[in-house]
Structure formats: C-alpha cells, structure tokens
C-alpha cells in the first residue's frame, strides 16, 4: 500500500504521530506491544535516532512538523545499520530519509525506497505517550 492509496481512502491525514500509527497498523495489521524508548524532547527535529528494541534496531524520526516515524535501521543497499543517521526531508511532500551510505531515499511513511520501489524496509508503529516516545512491535 502506498501513501497515495491511503490518502485516497480518507483513512489518514498526514502527517501526525497518530496518523503514522494508523498507517503502520494498516500496513502491518496485527497486535503489538509498546516499548518506551526516549523522551520526545530527546529527538532533534528533522533528525533520526536509533532505538534497540528486543534486539531489533529501529530508526525513529521526528520531522519538522513534530510527527514521529519508525522504520528499520538497516540499509538494504549496504547492509549496515545506519538509516537513522540519514538526512530527513521530503519528496513531493512525502517525508523521507536518505541513506547516509549510498543516498537512496526511503519513505518514512511506507518504508518503500523511492529510488528503487522493489526495495523496502520495515515500518514500525510509533506513538507519543505523554512526553514518552513508544515503539510498537
């Protein structure tokens, strides 16, 4: 499912943390447990950080408008766990991160690589609980 499908369905209004959660839910569609990882204010606007959750590396991002996103930290093009260190931006309005390794751009919403749509990274649920950022798996 792509962002435009979701928008067309009227399911989401982008981008808010809540919406992201619903997208992730729509994408993954199963029950989850929530793990608190950091304070919201620990995250720099438009920058990523990596959280270690049950041995999984999850890249979490806080965008300019305050929205939160979570994707797998592993860059499928290099194999290195580095996506959280990429540059956050937009492509046609869609929030993105560019891998710091070979610069492929990934959608923060769907995890799809916008430069090579056959490749994608997992998308995780993320939410704000009081001032605490929680990642769902």
């Amino acid at each position, binding site marked *: 499912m792509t962002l435009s499908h979701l928008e067309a369905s009227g399911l989401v209004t982008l981008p808010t943390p809540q919406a992201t959660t619903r997208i992730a839910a729509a994408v993954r569609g199963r029950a989850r447990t929530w793990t*608190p*990882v*950091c304070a919201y204010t*620990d*995250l*720099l*606007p*438009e*920058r990523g*950080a*990596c*959280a*270690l*959750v049950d*041995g999984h*590396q999850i890249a*979490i991002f806080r*965008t*300019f408008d305050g929205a939160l996103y979570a994707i797998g930290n*592993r860059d*499928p*093009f*290099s*194999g*290195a*766990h*580095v996506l959280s*260190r*990429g*540059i*956050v*931006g*937009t*492509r*046609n*309005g869609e*929030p*993105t991160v*560019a891998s*710091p*390794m070979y*610069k492929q*751009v990934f959608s923060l919403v769907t995890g799809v690589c916008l430069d090579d749509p056959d*490749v994608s990274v997992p998308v995780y649920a993320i939410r704000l609980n009081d001032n605490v950022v929680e990642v769902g798996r």
Partner: protein
Amino acid sequence: MSTATAGRERGTATRVVVAGYGPAAHRFIERLGELGFGGSITVLGEEPRPAYDRVALTSYLGGKTAEDLTYPVPEGVTVRLGDPVVAIDREARRVRTASGHAEPYDVLVLATGSRPFVPPVPGRDLPGCHVYRTIDDLDAIRERAGHVTSGVVVGGGLLGLEAADALRGLGLATHVVEVADRLMPRQVDEGGGAVLRRHIEALGLSVHTGVAVERIEAGPDGAVARVVLSGGQVIETGLVVFSAGVRPRDELAREAGLPVGERGGIVVDEGMRTADPAIYAIGECALAGGTVHGLVGPCLTMAEVAADRICGGIAAFTGADTSTKLKLLGVDVASFGDITGEGTLDVTYLDPVGGVYHRLFVSDDARTLLGGICVGDATAYQTLRPLVGRELPGSPTELLFGGTAGVAVDLPDDAQVCSCNNVTAGRIRAAIAGEGCTDIAAIKGCTRAGTACGSCVPMLKRLLEQSGVRQSKAMCEHFAYSRAELFDIVRVRGINSFSRLIAEYGTGRGCDICKPAVASILASLGNGHILDGEQAALQDTNDHFLANIQRNGTYSVVPRIPGGEITPEKLIVIGEVARDFGLYTKITGAQRIDLLGARVEQLPRIWKRLVDAGFESGHAYGKAVRTVKSCVGSTWCRYGVQDSVGMAIALELRYRGLRAPHKIKAAVSGCARECAEARGKDFGVIATERGWNLYVGGNGGFRPRHADLLASDLSDEELVRTIDRFLMYYIRTADRLQRTSDWLENLEGGLDRLREVIIEDSLGICAELDAQMERHVAGYVDEWRATLEDPEKLRRFVSFINAPDTPDPSISFEIERDQIKPVMIPLEAVR
C-alpha cells in the same frame, strides 16, 4: 569545401600508410576509424611521441605536460615513432624509413607538415638559436632561457607573437623583430597593427618593425651574444627564436618525382590526391587550390577529405576559412573573411584610449559582409564571422558602435560555426533537436564543435538558447536556484537558517541534496558551529558525527597534521589512542593518519584524548579544506629553493575549517621537481628561485586534471592573498559538489577571466572576498573541541538512544595483517 558522403561505398580494405604524425595525420586516422575503414593503418612519425595539439604548444611552457597535449592513438593503428620515412618507391609501392624499415602500402598519405623557415642570416646556427615548432624545441628554449636574461623573436606574425609570449612567460626581456611595417601583417592592416603594437609594448615587450636581422654574433663562449638589425641597432641577447613562417616539407614527394608548387607544397587535387593516384597529401605539406594552408582548420578538413575519398566518398576540399581569433599576450586579435579590401567599402572604428580597433569590409552597397579585423576586443567576431558573404543584420556603423549584443542573428544552417572542425549551424541544430543534446558537453561529444580552440563555445550556447533548450539551474525539487544563486541570496539577505531560506525561497522541507549545500553556504558565511541548533539537522552523517562513515557503519578519525609535519610525541599519542580503542591505522595519501573502525559512541572519548594532546579536527569528513601536503623543502632537501613545509603549514592553518562546494586539497612543493604533487590539487604552490608559482584547478580522483598556472613568482603575501580570493570566489560561484577543476573549466573566459576577477579586480569584489576570508580566519574554532565542551552535542554520540552504553551488535571485526578489518554484513538475497 563539402564532405558530401552520397554515393560512398565502403572502401576496399587496403594497407594505408601515413608518413608523418602531426594533428592532420591524427585527424586522418581518426576519421578513417569513424568511417568504418576496414584495412590496416600504419603511421610512421619522426618525433618520438604521437601527435599532439600544436595550437596549444605554448601552454606546455605554462606548465602543461607533453601528455596533456598528446592525442590518444586510435585503436588498431600501428605506429612507429622516431623513425621518419626517407624514401618512397612508387613502383613497388613501398616506403623506407630512416632505420631501414620497409613498409608496403596500397595508399600512402603524406602528412609531413612544414618546417620553420630560418632566414639565411649569418650566425643562425649558433648555440642559442632555436625554432618554435615541437615539444623538443620548447624544451631546448626553456633550458636556454634558464641561462639568459633576454630573448629575440624573429618574426612578428601569429607564431612569432606566440613565441614572444612564451619567452616573456619564461621571465625574459623580450624583443620582436618583424620585417614588415607592422605586427601580424597577414591578419591585420596598418591601423590594427598600430593598436596591436601599443598593447604589446604596454606589456613591456620591445617591438622592432620594418627591420630585418642582419647577423647574429657569438660571445666568447661560442653561443649567441647579440643580434644586429639592418638599421644598425644591436640587441644584447643570449637567445634567438626564429618564427618567420614555415615551408612545406615536400622533399619526399620531390624525390619521388611528384609535382610540387613553385614555392613548395605537394600539388593535390580537391580530393587531396597527388599526381600518383595511390598517394595523397594533407596538411601543411600540401598545395591545395594553389595555396599552402598553415591554419589548423583547413589542415583538419584536408585530413577528413582524404579519409572520405579513401573510403570511396566524394568529399572535396575547395578552399578554406582563414579566419583567426587569438588571444595573444592577453590581447584579442581576430580577422575573418576577405580583408584585402579591393573594390569594397570599409568602415573603421578606432579607440586609441581603450586600445580597440575594428574594421569591417562590406560590399559596395554596404549590405553584404565581406570580412573584418578586430584588435583589442573581439567579442563581435563570433557573431560576424559566420555572416561573411551574407546580408548584414544591421548597418556597419551600428555593428561597430552598438556591438553585436542587440543584433538578433539567426545563422543560416550552412554557416560554419566551428571552423577548426568544420561544423555548421545546421549540424549543431540537428544535434540539439534530433540527437537530444541539451548542453555544451553533449554538443561537443556529438559534433566535435568547440573541442579545438573553443572560441565558438559562446555561439554554441546561443544556438542552444535559440533552440529553446533551457538549462535548469534548479538544485533539486525544493529550490529553483543554483548553488551560486542561493549563496548570493543567503549573503545579501542575511539569511541565517535553512528554515527561513526554504520558507521564503523554496518548497517542502529539503533533502539530502539541498540541505548539506545550504549547510555549507551557512558555514562558509560564518554562522557558528555546524552542529548548533537547526544546522545540525542539515549535515550529512559525516558532518553530523564529525567523522567519515565507512562501509560497516563505523567511522574514521583523522586528526589534522598540518603540512604532514608531526612531532614524535604526537605520533606516539596517535599510536596509543589507536591501540587503546582497537582501531585500524593507515597513513593516508595526504600525509595524515587514518584511524578506522570507531563506533559512534567511541568518537567523543577518542577525540578527548586527541584534543588534550593538542590535536584538532582534520575536517576529513567535510566538504572543506582538508590538507596542504608538502615536501621537505629547502630546510632539508638539497634541491629545495623555498621552505615548502613552513608555507604548507601556514596555508593549512589559515584555511582549516573552510567549507566549500567540494573538498579542497592543496600542496606546496619546494622546487620544480614537484615531490608534493601540487599540480594534482585544487591549489598547488611550487617554489621558484624568485618566489612561488600558484597553480589552480587540479584534480586527482575520477577525472584527473593538472592544475593551471595562475600567477608566477609571488611573494608570500601575494601568494596568500591570491589563494584567499581564489577560494572565496570559488566558494561563492561554484555549483553544488563542483570541484575547482570543473568550475574552472566551466568558468566563462577561463583562467584569463579568473585573473581579471581576482588579480585585476575587474568586478570590484576583491575587498569583499578578502574580508570574507579574514572573517573565516579570525572566527576559526576547532569543531571537536567545541563539541567536547557542549554536553547537548555530546548526547548525540550514541549507537542507541535508549541504550547509550550499548555498542552496535551488528558491527564486528576480524584480523588481517595484525589489524582489525570489518566483517562484511551479508546482503539479503531478496534485495
């Protein structure tokens, strides 16, 4: 001429032998290849090297190497160098070389060129007398110039002035002696000659016209000591360069019984064939249409015609464009079309103050352009030359006084735009419309236009514009501006944040293209620490962690070692840090030490140790000034003439931390042996006995380029000031990720333009550039020290935000040659 190819059949495969290996021969064999010639090609050359760009010969003395000028030998061509043809056996169809080698041919092409004419004056064979023709000649002149203080050039034509320019460049007091009553008698008239003379004398050259050299006298050492002119004047000099014209080398043909012209030159028909149907002649040795041509354009055309004929074509050489445009000693000189002025009207414009002379020759109804001469300013040349023989786009007076900028010129398709390669406007339009060429580089690749002398490049640009091709300057989808434009916006509007810039001048929220570019602009203009506030979000991972990311996600640490000089104590500290953190160490190509394999959370602790020991950031991670490499210079080296280490350290410390569109590397060599390889750098400094020579625009890497000589014999202060301005002008105007080499090559007007802007201050911005650099130097703070002092910044240096002390478990190492090496992470098969 025309190169009609109608009716061509693939020529029968034959053995083609070429005698001579100059530019015409090169073009000939290249053209044969393009036409799909299936036979064997053998080239027998006299010089010890393949063909090279003779038009650019003088640049060899300016620092270009023989390799820079040499054309690549096309594949499948057999070449014998240093072994000229000495005889032709037409019966047996075989040539014999100086070494006795015999080479059979089916078709022989004579491309033996010409030899410099040396007037029969007494003393012309003395040591110190030279001609100006080959790279070997230039080597000999350079060697001689090292022992003398003045030089005389015999001949004030095109080549003579070029030779004079070369002698001046070698630091000699230079005289030019011309028999005619003016300089460049074949290209300009009396008025133009007078203006030209004033320009050249203003440069400190002595011009003697209307006199001949009577004799050359030797000194006690048996070498040239003085030149005596026909008027009795004596010039004390140790070096004489003859440049009084050339004579075709037709003796092979003469001896083989082929007809030659009264004044030399092998007679050929319009298909470049001699009286023997198996023998062709091309280039300066040929007499085509009753004329021996000495300009590169016609010679290359002859080469193409001969190749076409040999492949069964019907191309013909029916005369040539003798237009010339040159920048001699910094003076524009151009002539085109018919300038004999017989039975025509002419209009002259003379500005003695500005040193400009223009003269147009038009038909007697003043409507058709016949020819013209431009001295001092040749901007009109590009527009006017293709219009020769056509109706003028305005009155001659308008053209002379109003310039050509406002004239809407729509070149007819058959107008020749590139005379070196005989490319018409129609061919270029076809390349743009039919072959999808959307920039100058593509047009060059497609049509060859603009690849020889380059003077038609502005016309190519205009044709692109006229064809409706708009070059997008947009950096990315977020900004419709080029980097240079954004730089000016930020500078002039005083913008100090990405958010404000994108809100006012962009769309969206940026990307990995525009964010680092804007970060670099903000940093170049001195907006504080690169990790301060919002700027932190703009940096790519290297700048964000002040270290270079490597393939397994670890980082490298590179402390600054200015000029490559380091104390034993500091060396020991680096060794201890590497040992204690288990890092891989390697000496880099830039005289520093790389420490590899550091995890994000280790970086602050590593740098704490280094900073405490007196190290600072080497900026190996940034698009910034990196290193200034050096040799040991006059302090230790028996050849060094200046303190290259001291200068390298001073320059590296001055420019440390300076952010730019691309990384910048530099070097200082203590003598011309160039052990620091300064000419492969963005700026390179080479010591001379009189100071420093500054080279700019060099490049290692993917597309290597030797730097060009910008200025010579500079004092320390002049050197630093010139580099200051060079760097700041580059930072201001280059595109994103454009290295100085590309920037310089794309700079309109090239090196001359750069000199005008940063040395002569033609734009009046030098004071600003100087001040900008002073601000940078005064505001420098070590990025790592500042980071270590700021707990907020340090918090980012963790592998995991929820487990700051946990190292990334995906990173592991194995041992190779006693050091660590990353264990590569396998990629998923599904990818």
